[in-house]
């Protein structure tokens, strides 16, 4: 039996709770119902909003699955039941949701992927702050570290991303009228996330992101300025990027006609996550290849401590989840010199740009001993090296 053609994904993108994403999604669902399409609601979060609830009238609901976890009962989307029912279109609220431990899949976006793979079309909602590559910028803007994130490649799989827009003023009004949250929650929200400047900045980010998604739908392959079409890199093919399968991205070509390749240096330091997000975002916008390496030192007294090894492995996995080819590299071949190992690896693989974290604050030790970052900048002076800012608050 041949697998069904994958379903189409439509995302309603907003910038805060209460902008009307779910309302607009349900409005479209009602229109599809009127057209006689086979549509069901797989998951809906009413939040006690009367006008939104009214929009579900006449729609078929697939009952939620009840899950017990640590003595409490949670309700999750019943993906198996939806697959069995196999509608033409399924409405799934709150795309970035994390399922209760013990569920078949960790994230709702993975459930959605299962529906799409089965040939079911999906309508879903999300806010811009849940996009993985913007996590640090969102933190910088709002002071909130968003934990539930969606990798960018998942969003790129969407056939349509639609901006649901209202002005921050109207949103604050809705909040004050108690449309969005209960009175107490509204007060906290107004003091934090719902400040006018925060909302304005998130709104701008959302508009730019939706414009970017729209562009990648119609963009022509980038013209090669000189030297003919560059071959697609071997690692880009190997990583089997599903987004790449659906929409072949135009390769990025540097002014010299070389394919742009970005290499991220991963370390045990927590700043690695920031570097990975930023580098991947730049690579996506430039249609450049992107890979990551961490250095492993196996000789004698220079062996990496166990906690560090675990942190490195965690960061490499984080990169892999974002569809970055991430590897552990042995420094032995480069005479146990990690900086040299990175630069040589970059040179052999035709890397045009290296991404590193900012060096730790230089104390006395920093003055006496150059860190790996400065050594790389110096050894890699024939390539571009980007030192990623620490996008923290204050």
């Amino acid at each position: 039996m041949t697998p069904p053609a994958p379903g189409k994904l439509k995302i309603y993108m907003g910038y805060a709770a209460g902008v009307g994403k779910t309302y607009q999604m349900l409005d479209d669902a009602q229109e599809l119902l009127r057209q006689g399409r086979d549509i069901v609601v797989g998951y809906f979060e009413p939040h006690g909003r009367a006008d939104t609830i009214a929009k579900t009238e006449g729609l078929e609901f697939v009952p939620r699955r009840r899950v017990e976890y640590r003595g409490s009962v949670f309700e999750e989307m019943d993906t198996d039941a939806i697959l069995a029912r196999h509608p033409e279109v399924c409405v799934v609220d709150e795309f970035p949701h994390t399922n209760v431990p013990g569920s078949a899949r960790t994230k709702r976006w993975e459930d959605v992927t299962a529906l799409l793979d089965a040939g079911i079309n999906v309508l879903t909602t999300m806010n811009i702050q849940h996009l993985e590559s913007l996590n640090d910028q969102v933190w910088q803007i709002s002071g909130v570290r968003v934990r539930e994130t969606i990798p960018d490649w998942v969003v790129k799989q969407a056939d349509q991303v639609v901006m649901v827009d209202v002005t921050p003023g109207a949103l604050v009004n809705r909040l004050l009228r108690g449309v969005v949250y209960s009175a107490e929650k509204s007060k906290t929200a107004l003091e934090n996330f719902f400040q006018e400047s925060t909302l304005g900045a998130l709104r701008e980010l959302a508009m730019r992101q939706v414009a970017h998604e729209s562009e990648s739908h119609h963009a022509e392959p980038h013209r090669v300025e000189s030297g003919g079409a560059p071959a697609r890199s071997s690692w880009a093919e190997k990583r089997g990027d599903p987004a790449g399968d659906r929409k072949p991205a135009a390769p990025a070509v540097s002014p010299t006609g070389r394919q742009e390749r970005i290499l991220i240096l991963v370390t045990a330091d927590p700043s690695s996550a920031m570097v990975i997000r930023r580098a991947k975002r730049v690579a996506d916008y430039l249609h450049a290849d992107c890979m990551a390496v961490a250095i492993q030192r196996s000789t004698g007294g220079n062996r990496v401590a166990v906690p560090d090894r675990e942190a490195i492995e965690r960061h490499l996995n984080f990169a892999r989840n974002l569809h970055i080819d991430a590897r552990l590299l042995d420094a032995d071949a480069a005479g146990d010199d990690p900086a040299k190992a990175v630069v040589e690896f970059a040179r052999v693989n035709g890397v045009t740009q290296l991404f590193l974290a900012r060096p730790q604050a230089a104390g006395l030790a920093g003055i006496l001993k150059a860190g790996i970052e400065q050594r790389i900048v110096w050894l890699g002076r024939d390539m571009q090296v980007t030192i990623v800012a620490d996008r923290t608050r204050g």
Partner: protein
Amino acid sequence: MTPVIRRRTPEELLLQAQAEEARETRGRLKIFLGYASGVGKSFRMLDEGRRRAERGQDVVVGSIQLPASPDVETLLKRLEVIPLRSLGGVEVMDMPTILKRHPRVCLVDGLAWDNPPGSMNPSRWQDVRQLLDSDIAVIASINIQYISELQSQVEKITGKHVAQTVPQSFLYGADEIVVVDAPPEMCLDHSGHGIAGDQGKLARQLSELREIALLFAADVVDHQLESYLKQNGIAASFGTQERILVCITPRTSAKAMIDSGKRNADRFHGELIVAHVRQGQLDPEDRAALDRNLEMAHNAGADVEILEGDDPIEAILEFAHERGVTQVFVGHGLESKWWHRWTGGPVGRLIRGAQGIDVRVFPQ
């Protein structure tokens, strides 16, 4: 970066005073912006009018594009409409009646329409300005193809020339702007001019127009955000828009840096700034090299800035933070021997001082 609340400068206090004053005596302007007919601008405008009327505000419809869709017709029945009047065979908004009726809110479609000679104002957007000056709030809707400054861009996509337009500054002056977005396919359904064979081409055109509308709205929001922060004395840079600062000297490989900066700025739809810090007298050879580099920057469409300062790193950092730069490009040759002591060298100092800004070091 945490917004720093500091004492406001007299200029900022004046800005706020002016804004508050304007709020008291002027009606507020809200604009629904769409990228094509059929996205639902008029519907959103009228729907907001309906909701406000239901909340007890005094709302009238000043003008609406006809023929209207069934949805719009339904809404119109629930609102008070002041019919257009005919002037020399041209339909115009009935300004004398609206001004006399003096509602709290007036809904206005078709902002770009020109009025015939003998009207109060040459075009409808100027009518709107008069309504605002008379303390009537206006909710309007417009399609991006009618914005003057976007004309050439839109014309390239559609191949159609639009004679009547609204200046961009009018939209920037709006109190609120809302993007009305919908997938291009929806507009195809509504537009009616989708000849079967041309659907693909049309969908592509619509998608390009949609991108322009979203980016235009993002720019307006950026502008509003900036003035909000200024009025409230908040020094903050959110990095919502990529701004790339390329620092050049007579000796930098300026071409590679400017080309790369331009490509990055284009892909991110951001801004490209090229700066040089003036330091003492240059010999004729360096002078000529620098002039060539600056010329290149101009040709790349960069905003070129000559900075002053005894300490070039300090000058670059101050400028970068003030302009909300997100990436600084520098040449390796900015210094010699700095790699020995990260703390002492200029590039090292730049990296440490560049709070919240990426630094990209280029080969020399």
